[in-house]
C-alpha cells in the first residue's frame, strides 16, 4: 500500500482508496449539482423555450429583466422576512416552551407531541390544513367565530393582502418543533447546580429564565440562528398551498416565484437567471455560516 507523505504523517492512507470511496458521491454531485449549475448559468444568457430548439444569445438581458421585476424583489424580501419570523419564534416561544416542558408538568408527553409533531409532518399537509381552516366561507375559524356570535371578526384570512401575510407568517411560527428540540437537547446536558444555587438565593422563575437559562442555552440559540435562515428558501409548500403567493404577489417567496416561471415554461433563460441569483444568495449565506463555524471551532480547539 503506497502511503503518501502527508498520509503517513497523519496516519491516513492514500489517495486511491479515497477516490474509490468518493465515486458514488461524485456521480450524484456531477449529475445533479454540477450539471444543474452549468445548465442554469449557460441558459441564463439565452432566450429560449423548454425544448431549447430556438435559442438566441442575449447576454445579460435576462438578469436585467429579473432584477427589474418588482415581484422578484418582493419574493426575496418575503423569503428573508418569513425566515426572520421563524427565528424570532424559535428564540422566544420555543425557548419558553422547551424550558417549561422540561419542568415535566402533568401531561408533558402529550404536550411535547402537540408542539413537536406538526413540524415533523409533511409541510404540504400542515399548509393544506391551514388553508382549509382559514378559508373564508366554510373554514373552521370563521365558522367558529360565527358560532360564538363573533361573526363580525370573520375575515378573508388568505385573501386580504395584509391578513394573508400574517396568516403565512403564522404557519412559520406554528412549525416550531426543531428549535424546541435543540433547546431540549441543550437543557438535558445543562449543569443543574447553578439553578439550585440561584433558587437557594431566592430567585423566581423570571430571574432564572433571564439570568441563568437564557445565557446557559447559547449553544441551542446559535444552532437555531444557523439552521433557520435558509428555511425561507425551502418553505415552498407553506406558501404554495396556503396563499399560492397571492394575493397579487403579496406573500410570494423565492420558491414560489421560481416554480411559477419554471412551470409556465415561457422563457427558460429568464427562470435560469432568476435561479442563478437565488442560488448565489443561498450559497453565499451557507458559505458565510460555514466560515463562522470554522473560526469558532478553531477557537474552541485552541
Amino acid at each position, binding site marked *: 500500500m503506497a502511503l503518501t507523505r502527508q*498520509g503517513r504523517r497523519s*496516519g*491516513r*492512507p492514500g*489517495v486511491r*482508496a*479515497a477516490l474509490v*470511496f*468518493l465515486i*458514488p*458521491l461524485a456521480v*450524484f*454531485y456531477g449529475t*445533479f449539482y454540477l*450539471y*444543474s449549475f452549468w*445548465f*442554469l448559468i449557460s441558459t441564463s444568457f439565452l432566450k429560449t423555450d*423548454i425544448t431549447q430548439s430556438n435559442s438566441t444569445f442575449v447576454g445579460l438581458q435576462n438578469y436585467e429583466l429579473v432584477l427589474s421585476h418588482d415581484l422578484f424583489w418582493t419574493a426575496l424580501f418575503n423569503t428573508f422576512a418569513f425566515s426572520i419570523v421563524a427565528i424570532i419564534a424559535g428564540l422566544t416561544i420555543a425557548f419558553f416552551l422547551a424550558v417549561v*416542558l422540561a*419542568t*415535566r408538568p402533568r401531561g408533558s408527553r402529550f*404536550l411535547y407531541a402537540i*408542539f413537536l409533531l406538526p413540524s*415533523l*409532518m*409533511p409541510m*404540504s*399537509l*400542515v399548509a*393544506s*390544513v*391551514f388553508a*382549509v381552516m382559514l378559508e373564508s366561507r366554510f373554514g*373552521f*375559524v370563521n365558522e367558529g367565530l360565527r358560532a360564538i356570535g363573533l361573526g363580525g371578526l370573520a375575515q378573508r384570512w388568505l385573501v386580504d393582502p395584509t391578513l394573508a401575510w400574517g396568516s403565512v407568517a403564522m404557519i412559520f411560527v*406554528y412549525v416550531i418543533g*426543531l428549535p424546541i*428540540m435543540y433547546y431540549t*437537547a441543550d*437543557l438535558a446536558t445543562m449543569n443543574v447546580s447553578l*439553578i*439550585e444555587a440561584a433558587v437557594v438565593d431566592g430567585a423566581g422563575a423570571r430571574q432564572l*429564565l433571564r439570568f441563568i437559562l437564557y445565557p446557559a442555552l447559547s449553544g441551542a440559540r446559535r444552532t437555531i440562528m444557523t439552521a433557520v435562515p435558509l428555511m425561507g*428558501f425551502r418553505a*415552498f409548500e407553506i406558501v404554495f*398551498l396556503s396563499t399560492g403567493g397571492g394575493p397579487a404577489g403579496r406573500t410570494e417567496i*423565492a*420558491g414560489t416565484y*421560481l*416554480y411559477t416561471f*419554471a*412551470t409556465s415554461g415561457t422563457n427558460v433563460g429568464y*427562470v435560469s437567471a432568476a*435561479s442563478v441569483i437565488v*442560488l448565489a444568495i*443561498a*450559497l453565499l449565506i451557507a*458559505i458565510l455560516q*460555514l466560515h463562522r463555524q470554522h473560526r469558532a471551532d478553531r477557537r474552541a480547539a485552541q
Partner: protein
Amino acid sequence: MKLLVARRSDAILLGVMLFVMAGLWMVPIISALNRSLVFNGTDNYVKILTEPTAGVTIYQTYLNSSIIAAGHAFLVVTVSSLAGFAFSKLWLPGMNWLYYVVVVCLAVPATAVIVPLFHTLKSLGLLDSYWAVILPETALTLPFGVLLMRNYFDSLPNDYMEAAMIDGASIRQVFRFVYLPMARPAAINLGVLCVMWSFQDFLLPLLFITKPELTTASMAVSTFKQYLSFTPDNIGKYNASLVLLAIPALILVIAGQRFIRQGLTSGGIKE
C-alpha cells in the same frame, strides 16, 4: 428543572401560559378533525378509504411514498457512509476544501434547480417513475448525510485503522468490518430521517410524477384538492383525506422519534 417552578405563583403562571399555547397549537388539529366530519359524518372517511380519489386509492399513495422513502434512505445511507468515511479517515489533496464544497450544497433549494432536473431526468428516460423522485431527493439529502456520517466517523478513533492495516487488512475490509459496524447508530438515525423527509417531500413528486397511480401521500393533498374542489359536500371528504394522509407520517415520526431527535440534534450541527 423542577426548581424553575419552586414558587407556587410561578408554577401557576407558567402552567396557565403553557395551557393557553397548547390550546392554540391544537386548533389546526381540531379543525381538520372537526371539518372531516361535516355534512356526511364518518361517511367521508368510508368514501376516501373505499373509493379511489383522483384516480388513486389512499393505500396506493401510502405504498408509493414508502417505496420512494425506502429507495431514498438506502441510497443516502450507502453513499454517505462511503463518502463520510473517506472524508474522515482517508486522505486526498484538497480534501478539506472538497468537503466544504460538498456540505455547502445543503443550501441549494430544490425550487432553484427545477428546470435542469427536468432535463436530466428526461434524458435519462426516468420521468414518471419512482426514480424521478428518488434520485433527485437523494442528491438533495446527500450534503446532510455526508455531514452527519463524517461527524460520526470523526468521533471514532483512528487507531483501529492503523492496527488493522498493520495486520494486513485492506482499507475496504477496515471499513466493512471495523468502522461501518461502529457507525451503525448514525446510519440508523440518517436512514430514519431520510424516510421522514421522503414522506414530507412535495415538490419533486408534484413536478416529475403525472401518472395518478404513482401519486405520493404528501402530493395527494394537492391532487385531491383539485379533484374534490371547494363545494360544501367535498370539504368534509377533503378534510378526511388530510387526516388519513397524515397517518403514515404520524406513525413513522412517533415510532422513530428517538432516531429523529438524535439525528437532528447531535449529528447534524457540529457543536
